[in-house]
């Protein structure tokens, strides 16, 4: 009980204990740690301490990445379906509009809860900054929310659902230009689904920033896959006409296309990520969640499940539809969590950050010798230490 020193501080970053935990996390056993005899600059890290700070985000954020993603995905599909999907996709459009509104309503809540100062959430609206994906994303989410609200209202009025068709509000809602708004909503859906990837990529965290250019597209692909999965899953609930089946098949196809895109982008991302940096997504708990859950279960399995039927042009069994859609959604969720959590681990790993920030020695910065040559010639060799406090 006098052992206060062992209590964690700053998320366990700073304790001997924390050091040990971190060491274990990074694959080194306690035994290896014990061998660290003296507190020295073993290797060239600063006592194996993190060089950068991981985000403070709690589970709300990866969950939002997922929810927002689903919303963005359905919005993209729903919007396009409204524009070009014809009558067959009316139900798709309707569901998409409602789901999008749902996502647009939950998302800000998740984001606001996670703020250090939630009552100041509106400060986000003080500025728009292209350099900050979070700022861009805020405006995208806001617009998405408004458009989704409008579209959902329009839909509700048409459906005579909650909003009475002939009430003045209902009339007003029906007056909204739903086609242009569908285009907008689809575009905002892309924004919503993609910006989160950029958000992660535009940080100093090695795992995210390496191959960062792929993270937006990758997130977007998952978004679309999840959107399609959500629509497919909800479509399954009703016994439909052949038209409905067709629409469902098309949506399944979108899911497969985005699934393939996901797989392609994942392969590229892996290829671009060096082992030290990619470690947390390859091993450890989150590595397993990612590999088995996100990639295996969420990308490969659904594609594998759907593809036989789709290649043969046959309608897909309900069980397979449900299984594939659920796997995609679960995989999407796993992917968001795994990437965020593995990113935190990568932030804590000084070796990963060193690898990430390694330059060609001397490439960015003149060497000591070059600097000495560049130094202006001086008369003396002294620095003023004691007598310089004349300021």
């Amino acid at each position: 009980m006098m052992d206060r020193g062992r209590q964690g501080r700053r998320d366990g970053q700073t304790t001997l204990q924390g050091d040990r935990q971190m060491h274990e996390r990074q694959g080194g056993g306690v035994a290896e740690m014990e061998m660290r005899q003296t507190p020295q600059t073993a290797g060239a890290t600063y006592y194996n301490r993190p060089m950068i700070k991981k985000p403070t985000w709690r589970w709300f954020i990866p969950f939002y990445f997922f929810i927002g993603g689903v919303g963005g995905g359905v919005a993209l599909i729903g919007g396009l379906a409204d524009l070009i999907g014809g009558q067959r996709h009316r139900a798709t459009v309707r569901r998409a509009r409602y789901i999008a509104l749902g996502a647009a309503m939950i998302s800000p809540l998740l984001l606001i809860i996670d703020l250090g100062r939630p009552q100041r959430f509106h400060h986000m609206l003080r500025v728009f900054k292209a350099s900050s994906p979070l700022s861009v994303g805020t405006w995208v989410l806001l617009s998405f929310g408004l458009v989704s609200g409008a579209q959902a209202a329009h839909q509700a009025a048409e459906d005579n659902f909650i909003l009475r068709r002939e009430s003045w509000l209902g009339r007003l809602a029906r007056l909204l230009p739903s086609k242009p708004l569908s285009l907008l909503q689809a575009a905002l859906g892309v924004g919503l689904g993609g910006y989160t990837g950029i958000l992660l990529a535009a940080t100093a965290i090695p795992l995210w920033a390496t191959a960062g250019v792929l993270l937006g597209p990758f997130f977007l692909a998952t978004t679309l896959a999840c959107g399609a999965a959500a629509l497919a899953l909800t479509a399954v609930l009703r016994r439909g006409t052949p038209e409905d089946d067709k629409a469902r098949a098309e949506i399944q196809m979108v899911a497969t296309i985005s699934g393939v895109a996901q797989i392609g982008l994942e392969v590229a991302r892996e290829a671009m990520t060096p082992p030290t940096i990619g470690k947390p997504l390859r091993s450890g708990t989150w590595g397993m969640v990612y590999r088995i859950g996100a990639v295996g279960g969420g990308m490969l399995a659904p594609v594998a499940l759907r593809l036989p039927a789709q290649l043969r042009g046959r309608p897909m069994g309900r069980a397979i539809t449900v299984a594939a859609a659920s796997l995609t959604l679960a995989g999407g969720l796993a992917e968001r969590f795994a990437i965020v959590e593995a990113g935190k681990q990568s932030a804590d790993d000084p070796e990963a950050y060193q690898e990430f920030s390694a330059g060609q020695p001397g490439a960015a910065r003149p060497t000591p010798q070059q600097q000495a040559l560049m130094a202006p010639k001086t008369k003396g060799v002294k620095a003023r230490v004691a007598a310089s406090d004349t300021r």
Partner: protein
Amino acid sequence: MAECHPVGFRFVMEARERGAKIIHVDPRYTRTSANADLYAPIRPGSDIAFLGGLINYVLQNDLWFKEYVLRYTNASTIINSDFKDTEDLEGVFSGFDEADHSYDTSSWTYQGMSVPTAAGQHQAMTGESYSHRIQRAEEGPPPRDETLQDPHCVFQILKRHFARYTPEMVERICGTPQDVFLEVAKSITENSGTDRTTAFCYAVGWTQHSVGVQNIRTAAILQLLLGNIGRPGGGILALRGHAAIQGSTDIPTLFNLLPGYIQMPLEANETFEDFVHTLQAPTGWLYNFPKYIVSLLKAFYGENATRDNEWGYQYLPKLKQNDIYSYFPMFFKMMDGQMKGLFVFGENFAVGGPGSRMERQAMRKLNWCVVRDPFLVETAEFWRLDDVDPVTVDTEVFYMPAAWGAEKDGSLTNTQRLLQWHDKALDPPGDARSETWFMVHLGMRLRDLYRDSAQERDKPLLAMTWDYPLEGAIQEPRVESVAEEISGYRVADGTQVPGYHELNDDGSTACGCWIYSGYVPEKGRNLAASRERDKPGEHTNNSRWAWAWPANRRILYNRASADPEGNPWSERKRLVWWDQSLNDGKGAWTGYDVPDFEVQKAPTADAAEQGLGMEALSGSDPFIMLADGRGWLYAPHGLRDGPLPTHYEPLESPTENPLYPARRSNPCAMTFNRPDNPYNDNPYHGPPNPKYPYALTTYRLTEHHTSGAMSRWNTWLSELQPELFAEINPQLAAEKGIQTGDWITITTARGQVQARALVTDRMRPMRIEGQTIHVIGLPYHWGPTGVVTGDVANDLIAVGLDPNVMIHEAKALTCDMRKGRKETGVAIPSGGPHASVREGGTIDRSASEGAEMVHFDRHDGARPLTTGLPRRQPEPSREVAREAAPSTSETSEARHD
């Protein structure tokens, strides 16, 4: 120095940047070593061997500063032929009394004459007076042999004495590799001479030893041989401790000194005349002694000090021969019931005092004690520490909150003898009062109580002048009036004297401390408060920046910065010189500093054959405080443990003394062989006790202050060094399977202490006499209360003292060490219960039958106790704090810029 005097160290850094070579000699590689050019490891307690080795190097290689040594030191003086060196007597000098562990020093004197010292405990401890003894110095200068050939001359004695201190011997004793030692020797000698000087800085790494004084003596000998005393860039600089610790030796809080290094009278000094006779040096500056003591007594007793009543001399308490009320013996007196009450002003020895467990126990034997401190320190809480049942403690404790430095006006005297005045920034809160307030009001109340007493013993109390003006709501004494009294005034009209030259022995002047005389030369003109630098191109050693005692002199004995003819030794080292053109062609001393010499005494002036006082010194005798005007390579008087330093092992040592197998430790060291103060082995000559195989040294960290009373309550400091740790080398750690962060337990005969291990290569195993000695380093800042707590390192230390100044040996002892926590488990009392007291309760009767704690509060909540804001801080407090902070900082800012 970087660790403990970081602000002073900036000048070292500046010097390094200007090309000076910095050498650090320390058992541990510290922050100082990290910034030094050369680091020499040394085993704790072996500095005399190291410095002696340097002396031998200088003598053997003929590197001493010839003219300086010949003219300015006592190298040529002939010593009594009865004198026998330690080299002759296997570890003791002539005159040793085995039973008493002391010397009869009569054989150590100059041939045929006894020579008084400027200051020292010798007289107080031996009762010897100089002038009563054999021959008087005014009968002529001591016999000398200017050729330095006489076997009895100091130079030859010195040479023989240190001949065995070879680089090999240094390595054997100190563990310092020979080539490192030789590099140090080369650097120092190359950097000394007419054109260059070397300075030595030391602090308690040298003093806290059973040979503490002799450590400094060894450095003094070396510096005299190299001509580095009294010259710019030279000297031996004591880096003192607390903010005004220098001040509290000048105007002492010591049992055996009066202000200005005047010794306390002994019972044997029955009359004032006896007393003066004992202390007045017949030759040299201290011939003026009567002026200073009479002026002091005039300041003490005013009108009640007249020639007829011996200037009130009889009011002074007198010490009994050999009855020592020094700090450590005091505790044994408490232990034995001879001391009933105690005032503690700003000291926390329950943690900071070596032998602290014994000291806490001793306090429990007191009837009462008063602790004045801004913090509720462990010293005020001894009654509940060590798991004692407060009911069993009968001591009545008065805790009085003290005002902080910023809450009072006054001066601090720093390490370079600079008096710096500071102004009060704010009033003390609640019941907190300054020391001046407390003493003045206590004095007033006591005088009131005894107003009508006719008892002889109460007379001193009633006779003293006690009329300091009181000001303001809390009736704070005007400290300026104290300053004026210290600086001195003319009794007739109350005008200030300009300096000690104008003090008289006829009762016409009063002066509270002669060496401080002149710092308030006129009422309202306080030179300690001046803050003016030299203008560019001006050379006065920043003489208008505060005021240095004595006489605003920045470098003592600066007459030695000029050659015997009065010219600077070199242009580069010009400081004070004789200028014949001054004083209407009669010449005078002048320069960049206030000359430490009679200003009009020409360098060529001869000593008067039978003169008194300064007349007995010639124009080229710079060391005017010494009776012969010469720097003492050999100290014929004033030291209890020998006229020359010689290497002894610490009282507790892991090894034998290779120089004197029969005399391991200082034979004069003051030890206390008592059950409450056990030693690890026989302190004088036992063989090392294998039970305690490691050398242990204690020290400070930059992040904390001494007993931690002022830093362990401070969040910002405590987080920087939160736990007691011990520094051990990797080899020892590997042997014991210890890693950084593990608990280890260190044990001595006094007890055990648990600490975290800090395994570091900055500690290295040392090879001593072919044997590996591990040194364990233990900072001593932790104690049982505070925002961070830990075991008390001083619980490990025995009381064993230097015989001259009674300083403890906290820097070198032996111990055992093992992995794991101490046996008793968590026996450290927690910081808990006192919290209620702090919240403002006046009397804590939690221990109602036993110890009673009368507690006065500062009424400012946690203010002095934790400076940092609590970790979880509500938003408003941040803003409020931010608003409050700039105003105070701004004031200090303005002053610094």
